[in-house]
């Protein structure tokens, strides 16, 4: 599964399970947040990704 910020690129290159991220230089973070808050944001994206892995897909799907 693919975590990335610019999801249309992911769709173009053919990823099947896609999870949107925060920003190009920090897909799984947010430097303007406090460290603990930032880690919570990261965890949420990773949990979303893990959940996507447990869901069957027929083709390409973006897990918002």
């Amino acid at each position, binding site marked *: *599964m*693919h*975590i*990335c*910020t610019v999801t249309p*690129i*992911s769709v*173009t*290159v*053919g*990823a*099947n*399970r896609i999870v949107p*991220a925060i920003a*190009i*230089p*920090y*897909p*799984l*973070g947010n*430097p303007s947040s406090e460290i603990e808050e*930032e*880690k919570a944001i*990261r*965890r949420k*994206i*990773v*949990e979303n*990704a*893990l959940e996507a*892995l*447990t*869901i*069957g*897909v*027929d*083709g390409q799907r973006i897990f918002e």
Partner: protein
Amino acid sequence: MAKIKVVHYINQFFAQVGGEEKADYPAELRIGEAVGPGLAFAANFKDEAEIIATIVCGDSYFNENLEKAKKDILAMVREQAPDVFIAGPAFNAGRYGVACGTIAAAVQEELGIPAVSGMYVENPGADMFKNQIYMVVTKNNAAGMRDAVSKMAPLALKLAKGETVGASVEEGYMPNGTRVNFFDKKRGSERAVQMLLKKLAGKAFETEYPMPNFDRVEPSPPIKDLSHAKIALVTSGGIVPKGNPDHIESSSASRYGEYDITGVSDLTEDTYETAHGGYDPVYANKDADRVLPVDVLRDLEKEGAIGKLHNLFYTTVGNGTSVASAKAFAAEIAAKLKKDGVDAVILTST
């Protein structure tokens, strides 16, 4: 000036020997004859070139007796010693296309005689040989003969004379991976606006920067039980141990790295960084978990939400890296992950 000497290769069908029932027709050399499409070539050459011989071979014969057919035909061509070799056009005939590509490439490589062929872009012979010989784009059936000959003939003459061959878009051959610069009559802004107007009007237009062909893969079945799954991390965001020990390039990466994170529960400023030259590295260098979420996955591992975080992660720089390189890296990485019993991969990109 002496006429340019051309040897032409065609199949049994275009030689009017017969159809499928004659597809096992062995290679035959007809000296001094232009046959079938050869007449159209001859007309196009005017007085500049002549077909000194035509080689006729059945499509099945060629493909089923590949080594012998190739050897026999190469001997015929060597004996005739032409200035250029033309095969086809094959349009969308698959076996004919493969035969044309095979023999044209062999003539060029083994005899050093320039060769040109032509076929429909979806003919399997096109993909196989378009990077080895000049492969002219044709329509998908013989109704496109005149068009095909009008491109193949001048290109063949240029090759015979050793003249510079222009860009694929000018000469009508399939892009072969070699970039040729040329000055367009219209400047870029004008061409771009014309394309945009066509696009807005719903008309066909041709991009000057086609995307590479990306393949598609079947989605993997879902994971039934995450708490027993082994999850691996892979990234194109260039996260590497501090100092980039394998010197992964900051753009157009020629390699990927494999690094052990046994016992690592947090990527820190002192231990990891990014090698990527295509985005602002400040945030990833400060905390590489922002690209490769090792810290969170360790937590989830401890909590039992996932079975295990794989002890190796794979990384490269996805910055101007060619699709061919990326595909090669991915094939190797995937094989290693499978061998290590990894159930799923989280790929992160910047």
